[in-house]
């Protein structure tokens, strides 16, 4: 895999991690409007990054949560444990 694959993946992993953290935090702090706002901003950013990644390397999600415009790339390697 080329360097760009890892760079784009890492960018997405970083943003997604912030979302995981904010999600768990909001589960016990649903009244924290600042955190909620940050969560929503990050969710937008993740959509953009995920779309960019999928454009280059194929769908990230199964069952139609990612479209597959360039042939059926979903079931093609690499799988996460292979890279």
């Amino acid at each position: 895999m080329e360097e760009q694959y890892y760079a784009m993946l890492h960018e997405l992993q970083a943003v997604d991690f912030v979302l995981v953290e904010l999600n768990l935090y909001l589960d016990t702090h649903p009244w924290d409007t600042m955190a909620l706002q940050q969560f929503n901003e990050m969710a937008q950013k993740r959509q953009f990054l995920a779309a960019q990644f999928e454009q280059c390397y194929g769908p990230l999600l199964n069952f139609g949560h990612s479209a597959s415009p360039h042939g059926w790339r979903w079931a093609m390697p690499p799988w996460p444990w292979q890279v």
Partner: protein
Amino acid sequence: MWIYEKKLQYPVRVSKCDPMMARFLIEQYGGADGELSAALRYLNQRYTIPDQVIGLLTDIGTEEFAHLEMIATMVYKLTKDATVEQLKAAGLGAHYANHDRALFYNNAAGVPWTASYIQAKGDPIADLYEDIAAEEKARATYQWLIDMTDDVDLQDSLKFLREREVVHSQRFREAVDILIQDRNTKKFF
């Protein structure tokens, strides 16, 4: 339902072929305080717990599956191209006889995973205290695993997983705080 995402939560790199370490890491795959136990524990408890904490159990349970996949990735990479001789030397001869290089839900001593590793008492406080204990035990297990390897890349991923246990424990403690609050008293947060 669940949707699979074709990426790891955190990058997993290992810098050398080390089937012996894979054998120890399997503790967090199919052991009592491992990621499978964690995921199944939380996702099962959520049906009989107050609504205020169902979301938390669902989300932490889901994250545990991401951690299970990271452990599987480590084991896969550490054993992928190991020779039978190397596997035997690493104490994985018995495993090879039964499974070749397939992963299996057993602990570091080869004991298969069992549902008795996880509890569901139906009492919210008892269940959340079990969850807090499970997170601390998983944290400790990651410490011993970090101690057992000098592979800096592997240590890096294990340190990430250890830190996640700290955060999970924090959230479960907050869940207890929420449930012990008298709903008739005013919230001051």
